């Protein structure tokens, strides 16, 4: 579809022209995870115990921080009005926007996560489940975060409100994401936990963009 492709290419180009939007979440992710060995102890056994939680909380916060500006500049420049008055369903450009955003902010987190896992002394057999869980989990985080971003786009200081709205909704993804890594560490089968993450992904990706489009309409309506 023409509108989908045009939006996808435009978003990729825009993110590419604003490299801070790609680098900031990635750098945040790496920094937060690196602070833990300094704060707790470099003891491998202790690090290994907290590693799944640390990687997952860091990834979750990194995604959430990147969400705040998702629609802001489009709203300020009037592009959002253009999207909402266009003869295509708003969900089409919105889905393209989310896909582009995840490709350039979520996917780098997936690629870096095994490195952080290694740094936090996770056994190498666990790195693959860790990466898979982040791969399945971050798109859900992006979509759910975008719902909050859409609802707070008209507000001047939406950042904190966004966190309050979105963090509770992140809990299921966090539980099963970190749970997959913990299960793998204990040598259990991770398929089931990953399947739940996949189910959450299917739910958010199929219904989330509709909620985002509705949120944008509400924000523009008043």
């Amino acid at each position: 579809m023409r509108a989908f492709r045009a939006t996808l290419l435009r978003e990729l180009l825009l993110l590419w022209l604003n490299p801070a939007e790609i680098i900031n979440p990635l750098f945040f992710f790496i920094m937060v995870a690196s602070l833990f060995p300094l704060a707790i102890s470099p003891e491998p056994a202790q690090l290994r115990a907290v590693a799944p939680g640390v990687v997952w909380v860091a990834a979750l916060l990194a995604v959430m921080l990147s969400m705040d500006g998702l629609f802001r500049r489009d709203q300020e420049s009037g592009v959002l009005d253009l999207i909402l008055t266009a003869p295509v369903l708003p969900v089409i450009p919105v889905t393209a926007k989310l896909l582009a955003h995840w490709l350039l902010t979520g996917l780098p987190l997936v690629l870096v996560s095994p490195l952080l896992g290694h740094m936090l002394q996770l056994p190498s057999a666990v790195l693959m489940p860790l990466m898979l869980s982040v791969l399945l989990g971050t798109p859900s985080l992006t979509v759910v975060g975008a719902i909050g971003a859409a609802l707070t786009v008209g507000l001047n200081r939406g950042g904190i409100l966004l966190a309050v709205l979105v963090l509770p909704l992140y809990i299921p993804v966090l539980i099963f994401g970190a749970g997959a890594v913990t299960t793998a560490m204990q040598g259990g089968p991770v398929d089931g936990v990953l399947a739940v993450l996949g189910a959450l992904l299917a739910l958010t990706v199929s219904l989330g963009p509709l909620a985002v489009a509705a949120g944008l309409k509400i924000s523009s309506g008043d």
Partner: protein
Amino acid sequence: MPEGRATCNSVAACYSLKLFLGSSVFVTVNPDETLLTLEQLACERDERLLFCSLSMQASGGQIWQVTGANGAGKTTLLRILAGLHGFYEGHRHWHLPNWQSELLYLGHQPGVREELTAEENLRFSCALTGQQGDLVGALKAVGLYGFEDVPAAHLSAGQQRRVALARLWLARKRIWILDEPYTAIDQQGVASLDAQMQAAAAGGTLVIYTSHHRVNDRVHRLHLGSGRAEVMA
């Protein structure tokens, strides 16, 4: 320049509008042409009444100028017409089955991202709104020839506005809603914008715009102020 519908519009058709403030009786001379009906439209903002009892009919080929002091609700009215603002009372009815595909809405902000070039901005809005036409030709028509590849951040405010206005030189739509199209536009630009709006109206397009500038003497006026809406056809 792509020509839209070849509808013949007599001057009489331009005046096919009758309006009765505060009443729901309408007399329409040319019912086929009617594109927009507003009935008892009222809108409040922050517990302040912007306008009420706004009833009117507008048809293709007409140019409507919405006037009023700052904060009188001009932008809000246009957003209601474009379907962007849902908090109002009364009825707004577009007499076209698929009116959104015939709508060209130019908001208060030009809808131009500063990181992208003039051509990239225009191409995106066309892909989104399904408008066809010669992009370079349209940019040339608004005086941006040679600026196609310049990021909009390096363009002046007037030139950024012109990037958005270039859509008026592409394939014609039947409804134009333009919020302050003359902002930051120089004298020459104003003249060519006037000409383009009149050409569109002659082709059967309904043009609704906010500005203090009058396109020509036959423009219909809608004045908003102190909670009232007055129509001066």
